């Protein structure tokens, strides 16, 4: 949104924070009464409140992140991200980088937006095993049983640290936390392990970790990104310039809505062969030749 404001000086941004979910309706109403050009809501919890507000105010433009409507609503831009696709790449890369043949993932809470990443990660590792006749194990998640490790929230870093230490002691050497700030705890555990001479790394989630948590950049092989920022920016600028269309948008590898972040410090450490394999897998996913199954489809 700030990027949108920077790109178009006519855009001014206002934020409202909800302390409980009972605040959603009054908060949306506040913005409607202030005649905002577009109201952006975030998360599946706001799905119903946004839908009701959009139906009651057909001329008010909305965008919602991580939620879609069927049928689509024409004054709502519903933005979802098929993160199973880049999660798949993350899993493939992790399996390729693992020396111990054990990789681990865990989630903040067992929500579809979290487990879709973990499904993708799991798929990617299985695909790597098939291609290389390898036997890399995934700790912390099993797509078939949908059982795995969760810290219970997205804030308690200590839990992420403890869980990561457990994974490391079980032999995992690439960790993929899907748990927001809890991932910082994982990074701390990786740092501790690294300083005691173990070779452990991780992948960051949602944003480019080397930008959002640069202090741990040297442990991030890559980040499994979800392009919320650019999708929201596009929606806001469209609303500002009158080209707003509404309907559902799905971010994929093909349209760049989901992607693996640059390797940064790992540019030289990821073998060239693995990098080119990753590109082939990416093309395979885009063309649909490589399936990316998930039990939490967008």
């Amino acid at each position: 949104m700030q990027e949108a404001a920077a790109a178009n000086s006519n855009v001014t941004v206002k934020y409202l924070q909800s302390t409980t979910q009972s605040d959603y309706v009054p908060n949306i109403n506040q913005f409607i009464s202030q005649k905002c050009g577009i109201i952006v809501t975030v998360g599946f919890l706001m799905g119903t409140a946004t839908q009701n507000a959009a139906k009651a105010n057909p001329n008010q433009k909305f965008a919602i992140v991580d939620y879609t409507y069927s049928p689509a609503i024409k004054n709502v831009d519903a933005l979802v991200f098929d993160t199973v696709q880049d999660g798949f790449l993350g899993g493939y890369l992790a399996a390729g980088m693992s020396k111990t043949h054990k990789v681990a993932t865990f989630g903040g809470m067992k929500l579809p937006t979290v487990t879709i990443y973990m499904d993708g990660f799991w798929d990617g590792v299985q695909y790597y095993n098939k291609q290389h006749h390898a036997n890399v194990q995934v700790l912390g998640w099993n797509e078939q049983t949908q059982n795995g490790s969760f810290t219970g929230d997205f804030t308690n870093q200590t839990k992420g640290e403890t869980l990561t230490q457990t994974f490391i002691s079980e032999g995992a050497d690439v960790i993929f936390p899907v748990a927001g700030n809890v991932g910082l705890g994982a990074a701390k555990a990786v740092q501790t392990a690294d300083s005691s001479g173990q070779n452990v790394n991780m992948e960051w989630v949602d944003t480019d970790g080397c930008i959002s948590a640069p202090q741990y950049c040297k442990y991030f092989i890559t980040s499994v990104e979800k392009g919320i920022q650019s999708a929201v920016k596009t929606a806001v600028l469209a609303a500002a310039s009158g080209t707003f269309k509404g309907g559902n948008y799905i971010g994929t590898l093909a349209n760049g809505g989901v992607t693996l972040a640059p390797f940064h410090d790992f540019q030289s450490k990821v073998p060239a062969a693995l990098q080119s394999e990753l590109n082939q897998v990416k093309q395979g996913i885009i063309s649909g030749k490589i399936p990316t199954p998930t039990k939490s489809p967008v």
Partner: protein
Amino acid sequence: MSEAIRADVRADVSAPGGGATRGDGTGAGSGSDDGRPVAKAILDAVLEGNSVVVTVLAIFSAVVVGGLLIAFTDPPVLHAWGQLFSNPGNAFVQAWDAASGAYSAMFESAIINPHAVAAAFHGGSVTAVFNPLSETAVNATPLILAGLSVALAFRAGLFNIGAAGQFIGGAMIAGWIGFAVNLPVVIHVVVAVIGGFVGGAIVGWFVGFLKARTGAHEVIVTIMLNYVMEFLILYLLGLTVFRQKGRPDPISPPVAGNATLPHLFGSVLRVNAGFLVALAAAAAVWWLLERTTIGFQLRTVGSNSKAARSAGMSPESTWIVVMLIAGGLAGLAGSAVVQGTDFVLTPQIYGTYGFDAITVALLGRAKPGGTVLASLLFGALHAGGIGMQAQTQIPVDIVTVLQSLIVLFVAAPPLMREVFRLRSTRAAGQLEARGWSG
């Protein structure tokens, strides 16, 4: 129970109150009876040591400190402070504008907005005039119910930290009856509300039962049950029965129209029958505490469980009954939210009601009337916070700061007395004797 014993207990509990004649107090200094003197002493201090004056001054002080916080954290004001020496007047003007702007936005969104009143006289909408009050009542409703739950337990000497878990229990059953069962108008909403009470009561009863049978401390049990219930609802929302058709998100289907609490004043104003349920519950709790034998036993057990036992009462069965009712009240709060404002069950349905309930119960000095007033205050702060945030872009967290400061100041009466040069506890106690509350 004989009058003599009744009079004995009464004399015992009224002694520290400086000659108060009502027998509703918990005896200060009688902390050794239950093996937790510190906790009890704190509770006594909060519940008995304050006068209405101290409460009002605490609110006033919180507003002043909150205003200073706004004035020193708002970015434009900070910029003005940076130029303090080149343009000193500007800094103070800006600081004053930021704080007063925030508070007037809060007032306009929680009580009454003069612009809306003026507009109404010129053909504008009349409902807009009452919208702030309606929002205040909507926000206060679950707080009143959950606050009563905590207050009632306090009066029996129990710390109910489990309002959140009991809230979830109530919301779960009320919500399930709401979306999965088909019943006629009126009956459906009533059955769902009763379901909410039952859902909370089961969780509460379990706490009382464990304490009575095994001596498990209710603080530990209620906190642990909060986690159990949080994960239970997350688990249930993972099952197809509790989900909307064809959606992967953990959200239940919306409750049927028949099961929603009807709006009291037309479709625009969100204030609903849940507010009446809350007020009725407050009256019922007052009646229970002040006019029934159970209430008398409850207060006696709360004052001194050993004395109660030697007077022939059973603290164990009292604990079970109290926790059952307290759980039911918190469950009603869950029903008020799921049937009145949110309409769907989600993993976050319990919000912060559980802990807010403790603060309003403390602020209301564990009395039904006081709890209602404290909840209305917090409801107004919350409704006002939303408006303040929208109009001034000052973070809504300032409201949490205000609420915490109020409780902090209320919990530290000697500080308030020192700051405002009030007379001793004794004077405060006398004020309290003819003060507010039922």
